[in-house]
């Protein structure tokens, strides 16, 4: 006999309350009541304010801001729901924690992404929903199911509707590094546009040296596509290289806009016309410092994924379409 139907409960930590509210509104629900605070000695305190017994719980907490505090909040909320007999707990992590520490690239380097996967499982998560993982192989770090959603349909929609010169076909999709080539070619193919690649020599983390353009951008609008923009050193130098090679305008569309450190200054001083980021990470304060930043709202995609997961429907629709 099938289990009786239960309802969706959406909890939000302190990392990105606005996104959680957008998702809840889209699902026609209120955010579930929880108090996530800190004691005076900096330990996190989580109090769940309503019954979650046998319910389908979704906890929305991207990896941004005070990352370690937000990670502990997420883990303690998952654990609290587990001990409260929730039927299923899904961690919705639009921007995954420590996603860039995913391999042992030098001696004695920790694989922190694997540790985070273990922590989430040990805390009691049954399912993880994330978006544009830095390396999709991170799904293999988990023994529980992981849904890696794509921001690509939203990106395509933005290019079609908001990038000038798109209709004349005078747009080139450019990948700012060799690692993102697959992502950029996928977008270029779907839009039937040309593609170019920038190859960079990197000596230290977060510090870029020389950049070489492979492909032709003369007289065209270049659209740089990447999964994350952190200090924006890459994007700034890439824009410079493109303009030096004849591009008329340079846009950047990035899924996760971390924009830490001097990123806003770099963008303001660069040759970029506009930097478009999704709202997986809150950035309203950055927009005040840098008017070149625009937002793509991905809450419909995440809300739809939650709805389909709850109802047991296929999520594949979201890999190629933006929900209306």
């Amino acid at each position, binding site marked *: 006999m099938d289990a009786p139907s239960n309802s969706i409960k959406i909890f939000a930590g302190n990392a990105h309350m606005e996104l959680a509210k957008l998702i809840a509104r889209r699902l026609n629900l209120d955010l579930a009541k929880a108090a996530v605070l800190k004691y005076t000695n900096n330990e996190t*305190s989580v109090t769940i304010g309503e019954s979650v017994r046998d319910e389908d719980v979704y906890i929305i907490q991207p990896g941004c801001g005070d990352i370690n505090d937000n990670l*502990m909040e997420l883990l*303690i909320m998952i654990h609290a729901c587990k001990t409260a007999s929730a039927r299923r707990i899904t961690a919705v992590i639009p921007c995954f924690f420590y996603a860039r520490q995913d391999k042992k690239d030098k001696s004695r380097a920790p694989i922190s992404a694997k*540790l985070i996967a273990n922590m989430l499982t040990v805390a009691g998560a049954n399912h993880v929903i994330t978006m544009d993982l830095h390396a999709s192989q991170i799904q293999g770090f988990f023994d529980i199911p992981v849904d890696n959603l794509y921001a690509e349909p939203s990106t395509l929609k933005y290019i079609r509707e908001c990038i000038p010169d798109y209709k004349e076909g005078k747009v080139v999709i450019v990948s700012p590094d060799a690692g993102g080539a697959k992502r950029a070619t996928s977008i270029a193919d779907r839009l039937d546009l040309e593609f170019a690649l920038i190859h960079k020599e990197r000596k230290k983390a977060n510090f870029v040296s020389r950049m070489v353009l492979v492909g032709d951008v003369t007289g065209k609008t270049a659209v740089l596509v990447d999964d994350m923009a952190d200090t924006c050193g890459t994007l700034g130098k890439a824009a410079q290289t493109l303009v030096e090679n004849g591009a008329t305008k340079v846009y950047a569309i990035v899924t996760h806009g971390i924009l830490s450190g001097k990123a806003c200054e770099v963008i303001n001083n660069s040759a970029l016309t506009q930097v478009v980021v999704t709202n997986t990470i809150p950035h309203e304060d950055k927009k005040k410092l840098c008017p070149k930043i625009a937002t793509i709202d991905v809450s419909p995609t995440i809300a739809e994924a939650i709805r389909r997961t709850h109802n047991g429907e296929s999520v594949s629709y979201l890999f190629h379409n933006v929900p209306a």
Partner: protein
Amino acid sequence: MNNIVVLSGSAHPKLTQQICDKLGIPVGKVTLSKFSNQETNVEIHQSIRENDVYIVQSGCGQVNDNLIELIIMIGACRTSSARRVVCVCPFFPYSRNREPEDLTFDEPKKEEAPKKTKKNKTVLDLGQLPLQQSTYKHWTAKSGTLIANMITAAGADQIITLDLHDPQFQGFFDIPVDNLTSQPLIAKYIRDNIPDYKDAIIVSPDAGGAKRATALSEALNTNFGLIHKDRINKNNIQLVGDVKDKTVILLDDIIDTATTITKAAKLLHEHGAKKIYVVAPHAILSGNALNLINESFVDELIVGNTIPQEEHVEKCPKIKVLDFASMFAEVIRRVHNGESVSFLYGDSHNWEY
């Protein structure tokens, strides 16, 4: 000593340096930093292949940052083929089960909203939020099992800690836990430094610590007393035991906001205590604790150095610090060499503080 590396987290590097000085080895070379987006970065600069690694990290300061740092260091040691990874946590985080009283989940009116710190996080101050109204009884998550599971999942092989708030916490782990006790060291300090200790009375500031206080009073052969807070009628506080004209030694395991001990000191003063000492191995002293202690009837506050105390000593002249580095160094030496640790608690051991 061969094949041993002691690494320090960012919580209490001074204690690690003292421990390594006593062991006669250098502190392991590690660089701890944060990336631009606040993620923790751990770089170990020496080979630890087939070594026993001891990571010293206390649960104080920015607790969540230090806990994640500890977990990443354990992970780094594991992937670097360390033979054994032992966590030395002088003060274990999230070991207390605390209830924030009187929480409500109705939309707070603007003037009733809790205080926000400058990082836009709310700091929980007990008693600031109004009484609950609904029939659902909310409860605060107890994170002990989660922390234990996280540290085990990261790959630790053993835990060494001191005076766990809740001794049953050892059972949350599947790996061995050495829960050291500060009692012999505290007893020695009292014998050496409190002149009329034989006539003193050891008092526990709450009923939960009664066992701890009686154990110390038996070791010192002194009298014992207890302060009992009535949970239902909050104004009713009772003292069990006679303190008139006596030296009183209040014993607790953790001093956080210091409200418990300062209220206890006031009560003892009202009952005629001559001099009031407070002893605790773990002194967090968060929030307004130092001011409360300076203004209270506490004459001397004797604390362990499981949590860094330099700043506290500057602001509060009543504080004396007991050094636990020798104890930890000796335990690490014995664990590494496979010798008995219980031998330390026999009568013949000569403690240093």
